[in-house]
């Protein structure tokens, strides 16, 4: 197996995630796109770890998984709070600090 095939798959997932973050208005769906980006990063970590024959890549992938879980917990709590205050999760409505 070539290394580059994993890197390209990861690049595709990353760019789809970036598109999702930019194009979505629903807060929960933006968080899902962020998960796509983090998974793309994990594929890169593990692929380079296998390429170099060390476990360091896998260890960092585990850290990313833990931090992604923390991120999604706090992120959904924030989305829930936005919903409670505005009765909507539309990110276009969150313009309180707009001048």
């Amino acid at each position, binding site marked *: 197996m070539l290394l580059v095939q994993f890197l390209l798959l990861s690049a595709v997932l990353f760019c789809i995630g970036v598109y999702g973050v930019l194009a979505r208005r629903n807060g929960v769906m933006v*968080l899902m796109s962020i*998960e796509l980006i983090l998974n793309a990063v994990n*594929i890169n970590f*593990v692929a380079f770890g296998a390429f170099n024959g060390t*476990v*360091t890549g896998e*260890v960092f992938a585990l850290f990313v998984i833990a931090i992604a879980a923390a991120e999604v917990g706090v992120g959904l709590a924030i989305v829930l709070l936005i919903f409670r205050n505005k009765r909507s999760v539309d990110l276009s409505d969150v313009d309180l600090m707009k001048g």
Partner: protein
Amino acid sequence: MVAQNIFFGIMAAIMIWAALRVVTTKNVVHAALWLVIVLAGVAGQFLLLGAEFVGVTQILVYIGAVVVLFLFGIMLTRASMGEDENVNLPNRIVPATVGVLLFGLMAFATIDYWRDAELPKDGSPTTVEAVSDSIFSDFIVPFEATSVLLLAALIGAIVVARKE
């Protein structure tokens, strides 16, 4: 080797299709369920790379916990279970352009530099023992920092989401 490449290709095609559905479907619940397929595919790629422990952790943490959390978030924000026209920006040309250009840049850079790099052919799967040895010797400080971060995120999420 051929079998692995065929397996990789099938899984990559399914993952890319599912990822596109995650960011294009108008149904919030369907987006979460398509996300399950992408995450399972990522776990499969980890297994293909010999990272068994990370693959199993991926299934436990992502499919077991994160997706359930997403479904709870969808339920609590009372998203419509059918199609919702308001989940996308009206003008999606700019995000699509950014995505395609970014992919072009990344693909050019990676193919240019890593074109001939082959993964080791005799690579045996890394054992859980090796991973835990590495975590508890070289990466003990980041590991402890992660546990503190998880605790802080737990308390923070409860404080943010709790009713007054």
